[in-house]
C-alpha cells in the first residue's frame, strides 16, 4: 500500500482579486483526477467515525469507496439515501467541525476532504442529466404539512415522502429554498444547485405551495383542520436583530437579511435587468463576525464597494464565522476592524448615513457563551466614514407562527420549544426543527433536525 499522503488535495478556486468582482462560484470543485486522488486517501477504517460526526448519518466511507471504484451512480445512491441535498451540504456544511473532525486521519494529518468529495458526487449527478429517483414506500394515505422550505423543511419533506406520506410544503416567499435562496450568496452556493435539489424533493411527490405565509394566509390550526395528520415547523430564524443604537434607521443602513435578500433572492446585483435596486456604497461597514457578516461583506465588495469593513466587537480568535470564509474574505481584501463596536451612526441632512462613531473594546472574563466578554473602553470613541452599513448581528425566529398558534411553547428568545431527539412540540401533532428551535445555527444542523422529526412523525403516523 502506498504511503498515506497527509495533505489533502487542494480545492481549485477563482483568484481572489478576480472573484472579488464577480458573483460566480469561488470554489470550482474537484476534477475527476483530484476527486480520485482524494478518495484514495480514505483508508476505509473499520471505525467509520466520520459517520458519527454527520448530523444526517451519511454512509461516508461507502460513497467514497464508490468514487474510488469509479462507480458514480452508486456514490450518488449512497449519498442521497441519507441526504437529499448533497450539492448544498458539500458547499456549506462546516465539515471541519463535523465529519472531518472525527476522521481518523485527522490525528496524523489533514482529514479526508469529505465535503469536497460530497460536492463532487452531487455535481457529477447534476452534469450527467438524469437524476436518480429513490424508491418510495407504499403510500400510507397520511398527509403531512411542512412549513418553510429551507434546509429543515426540505429534509423533513423528502424523508417523509420517501416513507410514503403525502407532503405539502408551505413557503412564504416566491421561491423555495429559504435561507439557501435569500441568505447564502450565489458565489458560495449557486442558486441553480439549490433549485436542482428542490426539484429533486418535488420529484419525490412533495407539493410546494409558494406565497403561503403561515400565520397570515392560513394558521397552523387551519392546516390541521384542512386534514393534515401532522405539521412540521421549519420556519427558521428570520427576524433580524439591530444594535439599538441612535441613528440605526438612517438611509443606507440595512439588516443583513435585507441586504442579502435584495442581493441574492431578488438579484439586485443584476439591476436594472432585475427590478430590485440596491445601494452599492463606496465604504461599507458590516457589523458582526459570523458567516452572515462574511457573506454580506463579500457581497458588498462584489457589488462594487471600494472598501468593506467587518466591525467586530471581539478579536479575531472569537470570530464565529467558518475559518475558511474568514480567509476567503481576507484574501479578497475585506478589512477587519476587531475590538470595535458602534456607539451611534451619524447622518447627513438628507437622512443618509455618513459615519459610524465606534468604541474601542477590550476583552474581559468569559461570558455564558464561553467567549471572552467585550468591554467598552470609555473615552475611546472614534469615527469611521461609511455610506452603507449592514447589521449582521444574528436573527431570532419570526413571531408570526408562535403568535397565531394556540398551545405552542415559546422561549423568551422567541424559539419554539421542541424535544431535541424528536422535534415534537408540546402541541398535538406539531413538530418543529432547525433555527426556529435552536436560534440561528447551520444548514446541516437544521437538516439533522428535519431528519429526526421526519422519523418521529413517521412513527406517530404509523401508530395512529
Amino acid at each position, binding site marked *: 500500500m502506498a504511503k498515506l499522503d497527509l495533505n489533502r488535495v487542494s480545492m481549485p478556486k477563482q483568484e481572489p482579486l478576480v472573484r472579488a468582482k464577480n458573483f460566480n462560484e469561488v470554489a470550482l470543485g474537484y476534477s475527476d483526477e483530484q476527486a480520485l486522488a482524494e478518495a484514495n486517501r480514505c483508508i476505509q477504517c473499520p471505525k467509520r467515525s466520520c459517520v458519527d460526526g454527520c448530523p444526517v448519518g451519511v454512509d461516508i466511507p461507502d460513497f467514497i469507496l464508490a468514487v474510488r471504484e469509479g462507480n458514480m451512480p452508486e456514490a450518488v445512491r449512497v449519498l442521497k439515501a441519507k441526504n437529499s441535498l448533497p450539492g448544498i451540504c458539500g458547499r456549506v456544511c462546516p465539515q471541519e467541525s463535523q465529519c472531518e473532525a472525527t476522521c481518523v486521519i485527522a490525528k496524523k494529518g489533514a482529514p479526508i476532504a469529505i465535503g469536497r468529495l460530497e460536492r463532487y458526487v452531487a455535481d457529477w449527478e447534476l452534469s450527467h442529466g438524469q437524476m436518480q429517483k429513490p424508491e418510495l414506500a407504499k403510500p400510507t394515505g397520511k398527509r403531512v404539512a411542512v412549513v418553510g422550505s429551507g434546509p429543515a423543511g426540505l429534509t423533513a419533506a423528502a424523508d417523509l415522502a420517501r416513507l410514503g406520506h403525502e407532503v405539502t410544503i408551505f413557503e*412564504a*416567499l*416566491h421561491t423555495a429554498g429559504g435561507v439557501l435562496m*435569500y441568505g447564502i450568496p450565489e458565489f458560495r452556493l449557486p442558486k441553480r444547485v439549490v433549485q436542482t435539489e428542490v426539484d429533486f424533493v418535488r420529484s419525490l411527490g412533495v407539493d410546494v405551495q*409558494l*406565497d*403561503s*405565509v403561515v400565520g*397570515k*394566509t*392560513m394558521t397552523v390550526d387551519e392546516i390541521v383542520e384542512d386534514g393534515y395528520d401532522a405539521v412540521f415547523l421549519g420556519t427558521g430564524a*428570520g*427576524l*433580524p436583530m*439591530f444594535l439599538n443604537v441612535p441613528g*440605526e*434607521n*438612517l*438611509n*443606507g443602513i*440595512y*439588516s443583513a*437579511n*435585507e441586504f442579502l*435578500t*435584495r442581493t441574492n433572492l*431578488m*438579484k439586485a446585483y443584476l*439591476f*436594472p*435587468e*432585475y*427590478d*430590485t*435596486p*440596491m*445601494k452599492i456604497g463606496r465604504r461599507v461597514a458590516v457589523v458582526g463576525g459570523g458567516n452572515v457578516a462574511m457573506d454580506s461583506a463579500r457581497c458588498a465588495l462584489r457589488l462594487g464597494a471600494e472598501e468593506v469593513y467587518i466591525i467586530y466587537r471581539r478579536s479575531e480568535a472569537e470570530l464565529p464565522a467558518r475559518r475558511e470564509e474568514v480567509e476567503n474574505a481576507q484574501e479578497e481584501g475585506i478589512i477587519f476592524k476587531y475590538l470595535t463596536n458602534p456607539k451611534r451612526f451619524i447622518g447627513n441632512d*438628507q*437622512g*443618509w448615513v455618513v459615519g459610524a462613531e465606534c468604541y474601542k473594546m477590550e476583552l474581559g472574563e468569559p461570558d455564558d457563551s464561553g467567549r471572552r466578554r467585550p468591554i467598552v473602553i470609555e473615552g475611546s470613541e472614534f469615527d469611521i466614514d461609511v455610506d452603507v452599513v449592514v447589521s449582521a448581528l444574528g436573527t431570532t425566529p*419570526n*413571531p*408570526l407562527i408562535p403568535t397565531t398558534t394556540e398551545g405552542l411553547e415559546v422561549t423568551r428568545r422567541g424559539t419554539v420549544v421542541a424535544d431535541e431527539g424528536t422535534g415534537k412540540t408540546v402541541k398535538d401533532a406539531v413538530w418543529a426543527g432547525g433555527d426556529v428551535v435552536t436560534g440561528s445555527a447551520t444548514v446541516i444542523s437544521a437538516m439533522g433536525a428535519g431528519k429526526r422529526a421526519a422519523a418521529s412523525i413517521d412513527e406517530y403516523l404509523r401508530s395512529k
Partner: protein
Amino acid sequence: MYRIMLREDLVPSIHLFKVEAPAVARKGQAGQFVVVRVDEKGERIPLTIADWDREEGSITIVFMEVGVTTRKLAQLKAGDYIANFAGPLGMPTHIDNFGTVVCVGGGFAVAPIVAIARSMNEAGNRVLSIMGARNKDLLFWEDRLRAVSDELIVTTDDGSYARKGLVTEPLKEILEGDERIDRVIAVGPTVMMKFCAKTTEPFGVKTIVSLNPIMVDGTGMCGCCRVEVGGQTKFTCVEGPDFDGHQVDWDLLFNRQRIYLEEEKKSLERWEQMSHG
C-alpha cells in the same frame, strides 16, 4: 400564478384588478395588504387590499402607475397572470363602534378607504368621509364612498370639481364643529396623512394612518419598512401598516421612501426605452 379576473381603468393612470387568490380572499380584511411580484425579474411591492369576495375567491387591488412595477402591472389585461400574490399581510384596521368616525382618502387610496368606511359603517359608526384628488380627472368612486358614508365631502386641489382645496381643510372644519369626533382614519399619500395628523393633533382626536414605506418580503424578515412610532422602531409589514399618526416620525418615513429615487428613475428610463424603442 394568479389570474386577473377583471380589469377596470378607474382613471387613465389608476387601475383596478380583481385577482383570483382564494387563500388570500378567505382571510383578507380592510387595512391589510398583499405583496405582488409581476414577473420573474420583478420587484416585490406591497399593495393595499381594496376589496375581497370570499365566495368568488378574489381580491381587488387598485394601483397608480408610478414606477416600473406598476407600469408592468398596467400592461396586463383580464385573463393574464401575476407571478406572485402573497397575503393578507399586516394587521387589519381596528374596526369597532367608536361613535363618529371621519374617513379621509386621498389619490388612489380612495379605494381602500371605501373598504374601511364600509367596515366602520357596518360596525355601527356614524361615518363622515372626505375624499380628495389633484383634479377631477383623478377622481373615482365618489358614488361608492357616498354609499357607505353618512356624509361625504369631495375636494380637488385645483377646484376643477367640487370643493377647491386640500382634504385637511374640511377635516379641520369638522373638528371645529359641534359634533364630537371619536376617531379619524387617513389613507393616502404620506404628505396627506402627515397633514391630516397635524390637523387633528390639537383636537386630541385619535388619528390612524396607513403607512406605505418600501418593503421587500412583507413578513417581518428584512426590516426595510422600519418606521419610528412614539420613539420605537416598528416593522410596518407586521406591526402596521396602521399606526397612531400623532406618534409617527414623518421625516424619517419621507427619507426612507426616497432611498431608491435615483435607481427608480434609472429603472423607469430603461423600461420606457425598451417598451417604446
